[in-house]
């Protein structure tokens, strides 16, 4: 399950893929069956080599603890990861992630979850780190140093569930139908350039960020090197990972708004910048010059979830489909309208966002 030898020879993941997201802005709980049925409708956008879900609001009883989801190849990996986690974290509760035996999911990893907070008396290498940096550092440490172990989710009151299979089968395995969340993202994968493996399925997550992606990040090489300079190590053998870490860097660490981060990912063209009024022209010129290495080239439709809400974005010439639909307090984002109609036949409004223009839907406080 760990990235194979010479994983860096694998460059990127060209995909058909399907994405689906739904948010209830008033934090009404949406059953897991909703994203499952949406994804099942887009079954043919994937090929059975990756499916996954991210759910927000599913751990209210541990809402102030980091929920670490761990997948391990074998018992030894689980034991080693546990030792490391206990050294660095105060664990309030831990348990196997509930799963179901299903005929189609073969050879799954061992999956475990911890609800934990950083220890004040942790080993010296993490002493004094701000809490969230501490968690990021530990995720990177486990993913790069514990053979056979992967942290695939590390946010508060949220969790990712993903693996190799069609999304509806992965949902069956992880019992996704038993969760209720106010925000869901989901993914159906069609990997072509890189292997389909459990850790490489979407969503990719870090802290409470989760991302699902249809497309290909052609700029993966430069993005990865830039992230490396900023202490993010790409270990997942697929391009989408860089988006998760860039989100953390741009929004959490550098304090950019999600809208500005969107303009780093999908900047306006230079000819458009030329036509802007002075203030905008200066802003977008500065943004492109400062964050040129963070720009995402290539086709993408991405959905991002975090504690604030749901955020959809296309590449700037819209090489992948994305549709937004609204119904009451709910907003859906999907590769295909049919997936939305499957779970919500009557919609107030359906529209396709403009290329490079983010659609940001916030949860009410």
């Amino acid at each position, binding site marked *: 399950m760990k990235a194979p030898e010479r994983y860096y020879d694998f460059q990127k993941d060209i995909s058909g893929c399907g994405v689906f997201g739904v948010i209830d802005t008033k934090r009404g709980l949406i059953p897991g069956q909703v994203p499952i049925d949406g994804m099942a409708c887009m079954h043919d956008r994937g090929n059975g080599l990756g499916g996954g879900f991210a759910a927000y609001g599913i751990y209210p009883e541990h809402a102030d603890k980091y929920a670490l989801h761990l997948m391990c190849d074998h018992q030894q990996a689980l034991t080693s990861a546990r030792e490391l986690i206990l050294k660095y974290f105060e664990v309030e509760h831990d348990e196997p992630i509930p799963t179901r035996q299903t005929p189609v999911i073969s050879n799954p990893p061992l999956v475990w979850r911890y609800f934990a907070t950083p220890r004040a008396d942790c080993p010296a290498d993490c002493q004094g780190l701000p809490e969230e940096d501490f968690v990021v550092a530990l995720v990177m440490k486990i993913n790069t140093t514990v053979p056979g172990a992967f942290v695939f989710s590390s946010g508060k009151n949220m969790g990712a569930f993903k693996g190799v299979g069609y999304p509806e089968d992965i949902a069956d395995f992880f019992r996704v139908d038993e969760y209720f969340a106010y925000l869901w993202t989901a993914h159906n994968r069609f990997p072509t350039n890189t292997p389909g493996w459990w850790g490489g399925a979407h969503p990719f997550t870090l802290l409470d960020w989760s991302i699902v992606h249809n497309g290909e990040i052609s700029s993966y090489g430069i993005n990865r090197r830039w992230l490396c300079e900023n202490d993010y190590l790409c270990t997942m053998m697929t391009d989408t990972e860089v988006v998760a870490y860039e989100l953390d860097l741009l929004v959490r660490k550098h304090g950019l708004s999600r809208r500005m981060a969107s303009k780093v990912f999908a900047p306006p063209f230079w000819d458009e910048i030329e036509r802007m009024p002075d203030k905008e022209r200066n802003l977008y010129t500065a943004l492109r010059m400062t964050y040129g290495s963070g720009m995402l080239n290539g086709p993408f439709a991405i959905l991002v979830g975090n504690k604030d809400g749901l955020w959809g974005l296309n590449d700037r*010439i*819209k090489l992948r489909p994305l549709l937004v639909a609204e119904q009451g307090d709910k907003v859906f984002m999907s590769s295909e309208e049919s997936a939305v109609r499957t779970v919500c036949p009557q919609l107030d409004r359906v529209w*396709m966002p403009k*290329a490079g223009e983010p659609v940001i839907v916030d949860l009410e406080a």
Partner: protein
Amino acid sequence: MSTTTTSTAVLDATGQYYKEFNEQIRELVRQGVTEFRLDNVNGQRYIATGLEGDFIFEINGLPGQDLAAFTRGARIRVNGNVQDGVGNTMDDGKIVVDGMGGDVVGYAMRGGAIYIRTDVGYRVGIHMKSYLDRRPTIVIGGKAGDFLGEYMAGGIILLLGMFSDKSDAPITGRGLGTGMHGGVIYVRGNVPEHQLGPGLRSRPVTPEDMQVIEGIVRDYATELNLDAEEIFSESFTKIRPFSHRPYGNMYVPT
């Protein structure tokens, strides 16, 4: 002497996988059925794809990708929106969508007509071409995304910009007709010069153009129950390449 009665086959698509659903349609076609009403369609791909002949379809719901791809002659009415790739490489026939269109409507279309009531996505009419007496036509009642008529080699695109969900958006995105070397794009009202792809120019329409537009608009208005006069209440602009072969010298200058 046998009598033939025209009867419409009614199929319910609820919960049906696209393969089985299309097999049912094919089987009925083999039995001689020419008229279909498809109810509760939701995301089933390839409906009426590759059909040749004078078929009539009424589709209630939301057909999936590549509706009527490679079709030759079918007349299809969709009461609702459509997804991506409607009329992909279609050869002849007519598709009327009483709703919104997705990306790449009429991709490489070679004949027939596609009418969309409201907005469409990106790259609509990409690689459209005409051949002998075939002159494909796309009419868009709302607004279009970027690269409308990209690499267009023939046929007509008529963009009205009237029945749109996007009040603030320009009538078309950037790169209108990028790489276009044949055919014509008519736009109701004007298009800012910077939205045009390279090598193109926009001009007011001529009386001959207006004759063509009038014929198309009247048919479009009839099919979608719209007021043609309202559509004519504004002038039209015509977008064409500067020259006969704008890219003739691009790779091997003569």
